[in-house]
């Protein structure tokens, strides 16, 4: 039997013309079946075929599902001839992994560790992005660092030559065999093979420390968490753990601080965008419950335009709560204005307080410009999708999502190709 039906890719046009056709062939005897998708993109290249053998009488659920999801469409796109490299620097426990989840979510698909490899691998691979944890380039394992009496924050503990070689190779489209640092055992495990992705994200403590690596990164992000907030977050994270106490959390932060200030913190002056998380100024708050989050965006970069509030270049303080919007305690306060950061021109966008209803966020989003969103409400939609992540009701989630959209824009500008919003 041969079934044929037409469909459309997502389109802004309410009545688009069909731009692809599915052919579904099924043979009742062998229960073998083929799905073919013909689209405009495929006129230029070979067809995509999915086939699977099914038990007799079973419904081809997976194929139905896949055929209508964006990930299936992406298979039709041409592989870009250039890998875009994104760098994310932050200390341990500053929300790197939450940020990664938000960012990769914008490109669709769920990132997974390499199939069939080391289950303790730190790498996450999805359709378009590969996230590499730079701890894999530790020059010494846990014991080695103890013998040398250095922390993982020290540059001596990193193998920057190998890091540079690998990032360069991946950017040029070559595959590499990357070591794995096992965070549980503290040992360096045998290498895993990493193929060159469309978007390579390197995250860790030292992505911009070495000039050779720094020059390879197309877009640099730094998560800057103030000491008070770091302390509050680590209490939330570790207080319930056996053996941990307030004292041990305090000591751990204090002991790592000199190395952090010497080697990690200075990297923020090279970043294109910095997300700063500070204690609120709205109410007295000891627990770090409410946050004041600043998005510092470098001016004059070719690959992205800073987002702004109301009027570009002005200095604006805005309290959205009032007649049009009812906020609960302690309310929301926005700020926008030009500033300098380590002697460079920047635009600062700031949000203090938290929202607990989504209307508040869409109201704020509708007054932001240059967000790199592809449709009205995209930021709010992304935040809704990931509402279980930490920071989803305050500026951290909002600005992380905004930076994720900027990453997409950077990618589009480099490869000169549109990404279909998911």
């Amino acid at each position: 039997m041969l079934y044929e039906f037409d469909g459309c890719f997502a389109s802004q046009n309410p009545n688009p013309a069909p731009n692809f056709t599915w052919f579904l062939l099924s043979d009742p005897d062998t229960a073998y079946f083929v799905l073919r998708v013909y689209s405009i993109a495929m006129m230029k290249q070979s067809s995509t075929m999915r086939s699977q053998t099914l038990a007799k009488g079973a419904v081809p659920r997976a194929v139905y599902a896949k055929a209508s999801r964006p990930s299936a469409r992406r298979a039709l796109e041409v592989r870009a001839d250039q890998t875009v490299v994104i760098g994310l620097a932050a200390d341990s426990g500053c929300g790197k992994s939450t940020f990664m989840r938000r960012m990769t979510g914008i490109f669709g698909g769920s990132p997974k560790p390499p199939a069939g490899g080391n289950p303790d691998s730190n790498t996450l691979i999805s359709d378009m992005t590969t996230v590499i944890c730079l701890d894999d380039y530790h020059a010494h394992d846990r014991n080695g660092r103890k013998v040398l009496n250095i922390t993982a924050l020290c540059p001596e503990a990193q193998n920057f030559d190998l890091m540079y070689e690998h990032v360069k190779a991946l950017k040029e489209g070559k595959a590499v065999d990357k070591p794995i640092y096992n965070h549980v055992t503290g040992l360096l495990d045998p290498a895993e093979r990493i193929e060159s992705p469309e978007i390579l994200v390197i995250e860790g403590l030292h992505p911009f420390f070495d000039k050779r690596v720094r020059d390879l990164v197309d877009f640099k992000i730094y998560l800057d968490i103030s000491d008070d907030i770091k302390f509050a977050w680590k209490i939330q994270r570790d207080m319930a753990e056996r053996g941990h106490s307030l004292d041990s959390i305090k000591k751990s932060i204090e002991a790592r601080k000199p190395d952090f200030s010497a080697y990690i913190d200075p990297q923020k002056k090279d970043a294109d965008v910095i997300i700063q998380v500070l204690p609120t100024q709205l109410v007295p708050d000891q627990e770090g419950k409410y946050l004041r989050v600043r998005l510092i965006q470098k001016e004059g970069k070719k690959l992205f335009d800073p987002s702004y509030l109301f009027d570009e270049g002005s200095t604006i303080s805005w309290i959205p709560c009032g007649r049009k919007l009812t906020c609960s305690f302690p309310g929301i306060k926005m700020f926008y204005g030009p500033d300098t950061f380590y002697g460079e021109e920047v635009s600062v966008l700031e949000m203090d307080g938290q929202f607990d209803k989504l209307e508040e966020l869409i109201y704020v989003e509708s007054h932001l410009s240059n967000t790199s969103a592809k449709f009205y409400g995209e930021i709010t939609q992304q935040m809704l999708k990931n509402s279980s992540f930490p920071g989803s009701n305050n500026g951290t989630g909002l600005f992380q999502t905004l930076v994720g959209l900027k990453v997409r824009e950077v990618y589009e500008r480099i490869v000169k190709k549109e990404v279909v919003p998911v």
Partner: protein
Amino acid sequence: YVRSTPKEVDAQLEKALKEANACDDKSENCAPQWDTVEELSAAKAHMKADKKADPTQNDPLEAFCKDNEDADECRVYDN
């Protein structure tokens, strides 16, 4: 290869905490010990977050449907 279990992380973390607490920071550099504590705490938190984010781990129906796509409870039509 076997995936490290939360139990193993706990054991390592307890050992690391003992070492770090025993270190006398007035006479020696204790940063590497505390760094190890931080590394293991972060690893544990990541494990928890991964488990929370995986619907097949905390939703009995999702767990069942992972292996039984054609069961009545699990079939999904996208048309």
